[in-house]
C-alpha cells in the first residue's frame, strides 16, 4: 500500500558547508545516505598547464593559489622541488625561518578548519575565537611578506629577505599565548557531550582503507597510521626538531579532531625550538640569475596541513618546466569521502567533510 522512494539531492556547488564549490550528489533513504558521488572541477584553472609557460620564479605565485589557506606550505614544497632539481643547498637560517613560517601556516590552517568544522556542527562561537588567533598569524605573515593570503613568501634558494626587526619576538609572543587560547576551544568542544556525540563513531576510516585510498596527513594519522612526511622524509632540516606525531585510535571524526588539535601544540613546540636555535647568516643561496635546472625529473614532497603535498617537475634544461604535476592531498583525501559517508545521516556528511579538511582550490587545481 505504501511505497517509499529514494530521494536524490544535490549538496552544492553552492551550499554553506561544502567549503567551496564541491558538489555532492546524494541519494537519500529518509535521512540516511545510500549513495554519494562527489562532483569536482568547478574551480579548475589549469594551473599545471599554465606552469609550462612560466619561468620557474614565475610559478611560485601560482602555487599560492592551489591550497589558498596554506599557501606557505605550497611555496615551501615548490621551492624545495626546484632546489632539489638544481642541487642548491639552502642556508640554515633560511631553512629555519621556512620551518617557522610553515608551522605558523599549519596552525593558521588548522584554526580555519576548526572554526568551520565547529560551525558546520552548529557551534557558532568557536569560529570567532579561532579567527581571532588566525588574525594574529596573518598579521605576522603580513609583516613578513606584505600579503595575507597568497604570500609568494619564498624564493628559489632561500628567502627574498631576512625577517623584519622584532618579528621573531612577535612570533614568540604568539606561541606563548596560543596554548591558553587553544584551551578555550577545547573547553567548548572536546568534552562537550553534543560535540562528542556528533563526531564519535562518525565517518570511520579503517587504517587499511586509508592506506588503500591514499589518504594522507592528519586524516591518515587519525586512523592510527604513523606516517608524517616531516618524520619519514625530512626536508628543510625538520630532522633537527623534536616533535610528536599524534595518532588516533579509531579513525572517526573525533579522532581526526584530536589529532589536529594536538598538531597545533606540536607546531608551537617546533616553532619554539626553531626560535631558540635560529642560526645567523645568509638567507639566500647563490643561484644563477636565470634559473635553468638540468634536464631530468624531480619529485619532492612536504607535509602540508592537509597531508602529503607532492611536486613532480619534468625539466628539459630550459627556463620553463616541460611538465608540472601536483600531488594534492585534498584531491586524494576527497576520494575517501563516499566510503566514510555511506550509511550515515545527512547531518554526518557535513561533519565528515569538515573532518577531512579539503580545500577546493587544491582539489581542482
Amino acid at each position, binding site marked *: 500500500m505504501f511505497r517509499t522512494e529514494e*530521494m536524490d*539531492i544535490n549538496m552544492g556547488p553552492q*551550499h*554553506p*558547508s561544502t567549503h567551496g564549490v564541491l558538489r555532492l550528489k546524494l541519494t537519500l533513504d529518509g*535521512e540516511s545516505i545510500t549513495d554519494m558521488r562527489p562532483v569536482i572541477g568547478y574551480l579548475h584553472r589549469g594551473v599545471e598547464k599554465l606552469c609550462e609557460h612560466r619561468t620557474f620564479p614565475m610559478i611560485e605565485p601560482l602555487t599560492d593559489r592551489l591550497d589558498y589557506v596554506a599557501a606557505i606550505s605550497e611555496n615551501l614544497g615548490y621551492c624545495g622541488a626546484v632546489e632539489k632539481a638544481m642541487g642548491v643547498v639552502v642556508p640554515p637560517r633560511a631553512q629555519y625561518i621556512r620551518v617557522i613560517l610553515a608551522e605558523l601556516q599549519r596552525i593558521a590552517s588548522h584554526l580555519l578548519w576548526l572554526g568551520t568544522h*565547529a*560551525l*558546520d*556542527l*552548529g*557551534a*557558532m*562561537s568557536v*569560529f*570567532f*575565537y579561532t579567527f*581571532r588567533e588566525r588574525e594574529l598569524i596573518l598579521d605576522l605573515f603580513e609583516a613578513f611578506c606584505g600579503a595575507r593570503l597568497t604570500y609568494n613568501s619564498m624564493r628559489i634558494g632561500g628567502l627574498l629577505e631576512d625577517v623584519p626587526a622584532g618579528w621573531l619576538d612577535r612570533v614568540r609572543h604568539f606561541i606563548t599565548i596560543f596554548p591558553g587560547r587553544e584551551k578555550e576551544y577545547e573547553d*567548548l*568542544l572536546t568534552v*562537550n557531550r*553534543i*560535540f562528542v*556525540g*556528533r563526531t564519535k563513531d562518525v565517518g570511520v576510516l579503517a587504517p587499511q582503507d586509508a592506506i588503500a585510498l591514499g589518504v594522507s596527513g592528519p586524516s591518515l594519522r587519525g586512523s592510527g597510521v604513523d606516517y608524517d612526511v616531516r618524520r619519514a622524509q625530512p626536508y628543510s632540516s625538520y630532522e633537527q626538531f623534536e616533535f610528536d606525531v599524534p595518532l588516533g585510535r579509531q579513525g572517526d571524526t573525533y579522532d581526526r579532531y584530536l589529532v589536529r588539535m594536538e598538531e597545533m601544540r606540536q607546531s608551537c613546540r617546533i616553532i619554539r625550538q626553531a626560535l631558540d636555535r635560529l642560526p645567523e647568516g645568509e638567507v639566500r643561496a647563490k643561484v644563477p640569475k636565470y634559473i635553468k635546472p638540468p634536464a631530468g625529473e624531480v619529485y619532492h614532497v612536504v607535509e602540508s596541513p592537509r597531508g602529503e603535498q607532492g611536486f613532480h617537475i619534468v625539466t628539459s634544461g630550459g627556463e620553463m618546466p616541460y611538465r608540472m604535476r601536483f600531488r594534492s592531498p585534498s584531491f586524494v583525501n576527497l576520494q575517501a569521502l563516499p566510503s566514510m559517508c555511506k550509511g550515515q*545521516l*545527512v*547531518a*554526518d*556528511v*557535513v561533519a565528515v567533510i569538515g573532518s577531512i579538511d579539503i580545500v577546493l582550490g587544491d582539489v581542482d587545481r
Partner: protein
Amino acid sequence: MDTPLIQTVLIPALQVLLVIAILPLGIAYLQLVERKVLGFMQVRLAPRRVGWHGLLQPIADAVKLLIKEDIVPDKADRFLFTLAPIVTVIPALAGLAVIPIAGAPFTLFGYTVRPFITDLNVAVLYLLAISSLGIYGIILGGWASNSKYSLLGALRSSAQMISYEVPLGFAIIGVLMLSGSASMVEIVNSQKTAHVWYILPQLVGFFCYFISAVAETNRVPFDLPEAEAELVAGFHTEYSGMKFAFFFLAEYTNMIVVSSIATILFFGGWLRPFPNAAGSAWLENGWLFFTPLILLGFVGWLVDQKAGTGLNGMFTGLAAGAVLGFLLGRFDVGGLASASVPVLSGAFWFSLKVSIFLFVYIWFRGTYPRYRYDQLMSLGWKWLIPLSVLNVLVTGIAMVLFG
C-alpha cells in the same frame, strides 16, 4: 456605549491590538539584543552602523524585509505557500492571550483594566493546544515550497515537535497537581500561598520543561529544522521578504511565550522574590531601583565598547543608576514610590524573569553545537519522557504522604 460593553469588549480588543502592534517591534529589538549578546560572547562588535550603537538596526531590518521582493517559486503551491507563514504566526500570537504580566487589575480613565487579555480556567491546556498548531504552518510551508531541503526541514520539524510535546505536557502536570488549577493567575497565587516558587518542589519538572521548550521552539541546540549547515535554511529556504519575517516573528514569539510559561509555572510569575517576607517589602518598589540600574549600566557598557575604556563606563553607569534608583525608591523623589503601582512592580519582576530565560536561550546559541536527528529523538523518548512521567508519579506520592 455603556460601561459593561466597553469593559468586556473594547478594552480586551485594545489590549489585543496593543500586543499585535508592540510585539513585532519588541521582537525586532529582542533580536538586536541577541546580536549584541552574541557579539559580546564572540569577541566582536555586533551591529552599530545604523543609529547609536545600532539601535535603529531593527527598524532598518524591518524596512528591508518589507520592501524586499516577495518571491514565490514557480513550482510551489501558491495558496499553501502564502498560507503557511500565517498559520505559523497566528497561534504564536494567540498564545500570548493568557499570559498575565501582573496580578491585580488596575484602574485607567475610570475603567478597570486587567493586566492580561483573558484568564482561562484551562489556560495551560489552551497553550499546549495552540502551540501544537504552529507546526502545521511549518509542514505546509516546507511541503508547498516544492524544494527538497524545505521538505526535509519540515519533516524534521514535525517529528521533533510531536516528540517533545509529550514531555512538555508531562512536565507541566506536576505544577498543576501542586496548584490544583490550570489558570495562570491561580497558579501564581497558589505559589504565594504556598510560600514557595514551584521551581523548588518541581526541579525535575522544570528541567524537563525547559529542555522540551527549547526543542519546541526550534532553537539551538535543537535547531535541526533550519540547520543551515545541512539543509541550507530548512523549511524556510524558499521564503523571502515579509513571509520569511512571519516565520521569524513566530519563532521569537514562541520563545517569549515558553519563557513566560516557565516564569509563571515555576518562578512565581509577577511575584517579587520572597513575596510574604516582611523584610523584602522594599522589593515591591524594586523596579524603581533596578530599572535605572540596569539601563544606565547597559548604556555605560555600550559607551565602553566604543571608547575602549575597559569597564569604567559600565561601573559609572551602575553607580549613577544606583543613586538614581535610591532617590526614586527610598527617598520617593517624584512620588512614584509612595504611589505604589502594583502593576508596574509585577510587570517589572515578570519581565526580568522572562528576560533571564531569553538570555539563557541566547547563551545556548553561543555555546552549543547542534544535535543530530537520531540523538534528538533518543533524548526525547528515552530520557525526557520517562523522567517527566516519573516526576508526575513522585509528585503524586509525595502529595499523598505529606499532605
